[in-house]
């Protein structure tokens, strides 16, 4: 049974009716780390935000469902969504400094989480806070309680963010580029922490990044996003051994040292875009069919889905 199911999620600009996410469908299994791979503007962050009904102003839902515990989150009242947000589904972002309140100490920010969701305050909360901080690998947490966010290093701040996100033992953690702003060594330490939360507590993680290396060694399954659509879905090993979609292949070949990129420059010459395939303008294998109808996401091998006419 899938823990979270997204069905035909379509999000766009309210005024113009322009679609940004075009029919996203996928599911998240229990204890799974699901990677979302995509370049800037591909809609990967917007997908994360729309799962929690956190759409930026001006955007609205056109279609679709977000099914969690037999309820469609998109139909729930704000009050009810608040009970799920941060308690059952948490989210962490790239820049912890802008997500933490600069005028509250670590203890004050974390107490808020326990007070709001679980009604625990004061001394009792402090014990829980110290325990949670220990869990995310912060040494001497008692000493950190009185610190303000600016007094912590980047790695510690991200750990505090993770501590707040897992404080109520959520089922799902959405991590939107959580390590992009960190140095390599710190990055790997934070990933290791997320991995251990996944293995020991069965936390399911939706992990959004553009970093191939991190997804390769961290995610169980990967969705490849492009221009608001999913182009390919596959288990990690399969995807890296045998990428099917021309876009995925291009991404992999763009990795420094993989290939001489002489041919890449050719691909940038834009074709007139009148096609139904989002990748048509830059595709090395662009086909006639994509001028006539839309390619569908199809299972071409067991659990390997791809949206491309080459495999139809």
């Amino acid at each position, binding site marked *: 049974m899938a823990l979270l199911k997204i069905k035909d999620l379509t999000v766009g600009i309210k005024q113009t009716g322009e679609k940004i996410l075009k029919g996203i469908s996928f599911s998240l299994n229990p204890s799974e780390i699901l990677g979302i791979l995509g*370049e*800037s503007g591909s809609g990967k962050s917007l997908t994360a935000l729309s799962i929690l009904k956190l759409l930026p102003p001006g955007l609205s839902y056109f279609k679709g469902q977000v099914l969690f515990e037999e309820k469609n989150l998109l139909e729930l009242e704000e009050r009810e969504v608040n009970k799920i947000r941060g308690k059952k589904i948490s989210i962490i972002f790239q820049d912890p400094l802008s997500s933490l309140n600069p005028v509250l100490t670590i203890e004050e920010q974390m107490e808020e989480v326990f007070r709001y969701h679980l009604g625990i305050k004061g001394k009792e909360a402090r014990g829980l806070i110290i325990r949670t901080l220990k869990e995310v690998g912060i040494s001497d947490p008692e000493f950190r309680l009185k610190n303000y966010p600016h007094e912590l*290093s980047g*790695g510690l701040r991200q750990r505090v963010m993770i501590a707040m996100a897992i404080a109520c033992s959520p089922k799902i953690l959405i991590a939107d580029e959580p390590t992009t702003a960190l*140095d*390599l*060594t*710190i990055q*790997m*330490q934070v*990933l*290791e922490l997320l991995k251990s939360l996944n293995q020991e507590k069965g936390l399911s993680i939706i992990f959004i990044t*553009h*970093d*191939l*290396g*991190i*997804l*390769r*060694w*961290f995610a169980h399954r990967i969705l490849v996003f492009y221009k608001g659509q999913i182009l390919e879905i596959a288990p990690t090993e399969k995807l*890296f051994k045998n990428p099917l979609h021309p876009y995925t292949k*291009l*991404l*992999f*070949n*763009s*990795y*420094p*040292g*993989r290939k*001489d*990129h*002489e041919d*890449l*420059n050719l691909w*940038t010459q834009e074709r007139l875009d009148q096609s139904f395939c989002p990748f048509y303008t830059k595709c090395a294998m662009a086909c006639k069919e994509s001028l006539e109808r839309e390619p569908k996401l199809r299972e071409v091998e067991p659990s390997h889905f791809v949206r491309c006419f080459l495999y139809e």
Partner: protein
Amino acid sequence: MNEEILAEVKGVSKVYKVRTYLFKKISFYALLDVSLKVRKGEVVVLLGESGCGKTTLGKIFLDLEKPDKGDVFWFSYNLKSLDKRLYKEIRPKIQALFQDSFASLNPRFKVKEILSEPYLINFKSSKREALEKALEVLCQVGLSEEILERYPHQLSGGQRQRVALARALITEPKLIVLDEPTSALDMTIQSQILTLLKRLKEIKGLSYLLITHSLPAALEMADRIVVMYLGRIVESFKKEVFRKIDHHPYTKMLLRAFPDPFSENPPEVSTIKGEPASLLQRREGCEFYPRCPEADSLCAKERPTLRGNNEYQVSCLKRPFN
């Protein structure tokens, strides 16, 4: 010697001051006794984590920052004793390309003005000549003529970075300092820019000082890789010997921890110890000591120096030369 040295720093240190509380200031060394040469036709890569001083060193090479100690040489002229006329003549030969091209291009200038301005200033040419030259460099970076009439905000990130590169090229430089030139770009665009940089280097015989924190980009581009840690060079080696040498423990840690998507081996995270120390609190002995898996009691007391030969230099008591 046919190895012409384009730019060199010798024993350079740089101090910055930070205000901690009202009038209380403390100073710290962002760079400590760094020496480095860039030879003709060579790509030197500065690799390191944030705060290790790689950008500061790049700025010193560009004469955008003055070192507090040590000397900077351009074409073997010491900048301290260079007279103004000669300085003006060789200044355009050393150019820069930064990470954020949006911040480094004037938003009120059209691309043709952005490109021709440095040419008009440095070569006292006519406007027509400058425009012709602008078109030439624009072609070299793979952009077409219609871009000339556009403003920076009308360009994509990749196009902006190409324009910034064209502006660097228009003065016919010998050396370009590239400070994280691709880290703000998408993967596919990144590889295009790196390929373009490599091709231009071949055609024009350029040299680069490439500042990056990306290991794959460093290996793709470099002739020589220089690893920095807390304001010092801990290791410097030619790319040919990359697989052969016993690396500095810090470099080893980076190499092991790096998640390579196309390798068979998963990253080793257990070897990472702690976080980089603060530049404000320097320690006796080796600066990497608290995080080093190979350290012993001698490392806590004695500071290693960068020693070695032309191919490989390292600053570690547990390695040869020391």
